[in-house]
Structures are given as C-alpha cells and as structure tokens.
C-alpha cells in the first residue's frame, strides 16, 4: 500500500498501466485519471441533484409536439394528429402552452374541470379525446405573466393531478421555443418520443433544428419532423404556390439524422376547423390535410 503525489500525466498513465498488469488497486483524487468505477460513482452522485423522470398515472406513452419557432401550427398539428390517432388508440391532449392555450378553442371545450373524490381534475372530453389546459382554469383575457419555475410547476400539476385513466397516448402541446420548459419536461417525464413541427422557411427550420438538438442531448427520441404549411392550392384555379418555401424539412431531416413524418398542405379549411373547434380531420376527412394527418398518425 503506498501513496504518492503524482505531478504529471506520464506518472498517472504509468501507474494505470501497472495496475492493469499487476492487479494493483489504484486510486486517484483527480477525476481526469479516475478509474471507470470512480467515474461512475461521481456521475451517480451528480445525478442525484437532477430531477428524476416520473411516469404519469394513467398514461402509457407521452408524445411531445414541439416546434422551436412559434406560429408554425404546432397546436393545430397536435390536435389533428391526436384525433387521427384516436381512431386506433385512447388519446389525451395536454396543453402545456401556458401563455397561449389554444386547445380549448380547437377542441371546443370550456369550463372548469370537476374533481374526483381524491382531488384529481377530471379532464373534459370531446370527440373521444381527454384534454387538460390552463385555458380551462383562467379567463381568456387573463395574462399569465409567470417566470419559468412557476410555469413548470403549473404544467407538472396539469400533468400529474389530472385523472387521465387509461390513456394510451398523451400528446403534449408544448410552448414555442427551446426554452427551459421543454428541457424540464424532457427531464421530469418519461417521454416516448417527440415530434417537431416546422414550416419550410429557414427561420423556422433553424429553430426546429435547435429543438431536435436539445432533445438528442437529453436523450428524448425524436420521432420525426412534420412540415406544415406546405404548398397552397388556389381553390379557384388550382395553381400551387409555395408561400413559405419548400422541401426545407427534408434537408433538416438529413442533417439531423431524423425523418420527415409528412407534410401538411396550406389549406384554409384547417384554420376554419381550428377556430371553430371542429378539427378538419373530423369535418373533412377526405380533404388533403386530413389524409395527410391520418398518414402521419399511421
């Protein structure tokens, strides 16, 4: 048994090699030269400080619908995909966009959720899909001016204190950006996968790329990219205009080693469906966007 004060790289490496050959246990206070076992222990200790990923009671799979850039149609995509999926599975939607909760409008649901005997919120349901949103709890005119931690606290409550009961897939409509909310969600919840929504424009793709990068860094499986607001077909003459560019998602998918799940055409019926609370996949199931959503859901 001996101790020595090693001052250089060479000595450390020499001792390490020696220990491999002669079965000597060696211990270094420098983590750079620590044995694998010591590094593992250090990582374990550091992980204790980080939030643990919890499962959500009543939910089998969690899918994050994110975008990076705002205004690309994330909520509309989340709603229509959820409805397309609900043909095959039991689906729920969590509206985690605390500042701009669109789900109540898009799903035509309003009113304060009731409570179960054990104080869990009963998610209002429409079209067979259970929903929870802060939109049910605040007035349409109220501004939620909260900092990050409060926002995450609210989202956690909406997630964990809702009586989801028997939901196969919970779609989470996330706030825009690659901010700390998305990070917190990825760190605290078991996420089965993430879908990234973008338009074909470079500015949207740049933000989607950041989102994909972030997901990869925290170990969330990116299922793929949805390219929204694809070409616009004039109802009058049939002329196609790629208002927001084209094929951007394909380039991004190649660069980030993900895939394009599909594209959604730019069609006013999608917007009408969203605003009226009658999603296009239900009102016009044979329309191009509805078929595209169904394809992605498959």
């Amino acid at each position: 048994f001996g101790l020595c004060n090693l001052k250089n790289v060479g000595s450390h490496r020499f001792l390490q090699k020696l220990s491999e050959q002669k079965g000597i246990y060696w211990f270094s206070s420098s983590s750079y030269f620590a044995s694998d076992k010591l590094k593992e222990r250090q990582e374990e200790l550091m992980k204790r400080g980080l939030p643990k990923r919890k499962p959500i009671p009543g939910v089998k799979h969690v899918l994050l619908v994110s975008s990076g850039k705002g205004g690309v149609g994330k909520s509309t995509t989340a709603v229509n995909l959820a409805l397309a999926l609900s043909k095959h599975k039991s689906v729920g939607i969590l509206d985690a966009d605390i500042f701009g909760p669109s789900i109540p409008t898009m799903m035509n649901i309003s009113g304060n959720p009731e409570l179960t005997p054990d104080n869990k919120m009963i998610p209002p349901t429409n079209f067979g899909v259970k929903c929870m949103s802060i939109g049910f709890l605040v007035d349409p005119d109220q501004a939620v001016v909260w900092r990050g931690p409060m926002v995450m606290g609210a989202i956690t409550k909406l997630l964990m204190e809702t009586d989801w009961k028997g939901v196969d897939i919970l779609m989470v409509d996330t706030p825009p950006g690659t901010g700390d909310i998305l990070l917190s969600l990825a760190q605290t919840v078991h996420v089965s996968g993430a879908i990234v929504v973008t338009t074909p424009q470079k500015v949207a793709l740049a933000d989607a790329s950041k989102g994909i990068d972030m997901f990869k860094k925290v170990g969330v499986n990116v299922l793929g990219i949805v390219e929204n607001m694809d070409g616009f077909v004039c109802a009058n003459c049939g002329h196609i205009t790629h208002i927001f560019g084209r094929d951007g998602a394909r380039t991004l998918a190649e660069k980030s080693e993900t895939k394009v799940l599909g594209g959604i055409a730019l069609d006013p019926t999608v917007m009408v469906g969203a605003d009226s609370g009658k999603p296009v996949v239900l009102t016009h199931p044979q329309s191009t966007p509805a078929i595209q959503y169904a394809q992605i859901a498959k």
Partner: protein
Amino acid sequence: DIDLCGPSIPRMLGVHGREVHQHDAGWLPVYTDNSQTLGVMSIGFLLGNQDDPVVWRGPKKTAMIRQFLSDVTWGELDVLVIDTPPGTSDEHIAVMEALKDVKVDGAVLVTTPQAVAVGDVRRELTFCKKTKLKVLGIIENMSGFVCPHCTECTNIFSAGGGKSLAEHAKVPFLGSVPIEPNLALAAETGQDFASSFATSEAAIRFKSIFENLLLDNNGTVAENSGDMDTT
C-alpha cells in the same frame, strides 16, 4: 432581438453569422451596412455554432437581456425596436424591468387574423395593461393571399380578427398586411423587402402602417430621440 431561443432577426436582416465586436465602452451593434443607420443585437451573433440551442432558465435570460440594453453602445438612436418571443414570460418580464427607468413609447402587437392567434394576443394586451405599457396599435399580418395566377384572394388564415380585437380592446388598428411569398423569401435571404419589392401590396401596406405609427404619435417617437437613453 430578445427572442433568445429563436433569434431570427440576424438572418432576416442579412447579418447572419456576423460577430459582435467589443471596445472600451461596451459591445458594438452589428450594422447592416456602412451607413450604420440600422444596428442589430441578437444572441444569434454570440452563439459559437448557429445551430446550438439556447436552453437557458430565467435568471440567465434576464441577465442577457439586461446586457443587451446596458452594455451595447447603441449611440444616438431615433428608435429602438425590441423583438420579443411569443408569450408573456421571463423575457417579457426581464425587458420591462430593465426598461423601468426608461420612457418606453409603447408596444406594437402583431397577430394573424385567426381566432386562436387573436386569443393569444388578447393576453399580450393584458400584459401591456398590467405593466402600464401603452399599446400603439395592432397589426394584422398574413391577412389574405392573392393567387399570383388568377388574382383570387383566399383568406387562408381568416380575416378581420386583428381589426375586431383592436375595436374590442379600444386600441388603434394600424393596418393589415397580406401574405406575400416574396416577403417570406426576402426574410430567408436577408433581402431588404421594402426596397426590392416596393410596389408590392405588402410593402405599400407596411409603409402606410409605419407612417401612421409615426404620425399618430404626433412625431413623439422622433421628438424623443434625444431622451431615449438606454445606457
């Protein structure tokens, strides 16, 4: 550009990938050309790799925004335009706090015509009221699309929502701007849309909106140029 997660301004102004230079008094804004009439500051210039996500929590975002206002040597400005991210969170609180001793002329709110977008902007209006920020007006963007082939106008994102909101909230309606593919393209390539497509309907509408903005304030924006000290 205080949209720290999605800094689009550098690309839109054709200064994507440029570096920020420091001198004794602080950081220099990145100028779009030699005339130095338009200076830009964005986190986009500070990222080592443009694709790196900025996943910061509140305190760091707040500190960055404060630095943008206090450490950048903007010089004598007539107008400082602050582009905010969507929502009413850390960035918005941070900028209002950092500007609390500065006379802020007001906020311009942009919406698309649809109900879901207008619904979000209603909350922004409340934020402005709560923070005593004057609302200079609402702009309705992406208001109708005229097919280049047959000139039929389709209201892809509905129409009139912004105008209705302005009436309901009793704030000025500054005007509406149609969807213009050339504008989207100009944003992609950093082109000056107003110059390159001056005769397009979108450019004409923008011009009229900005003229109204300056006039409605009785030239206050220009008048206050001396007072607007952001250091």
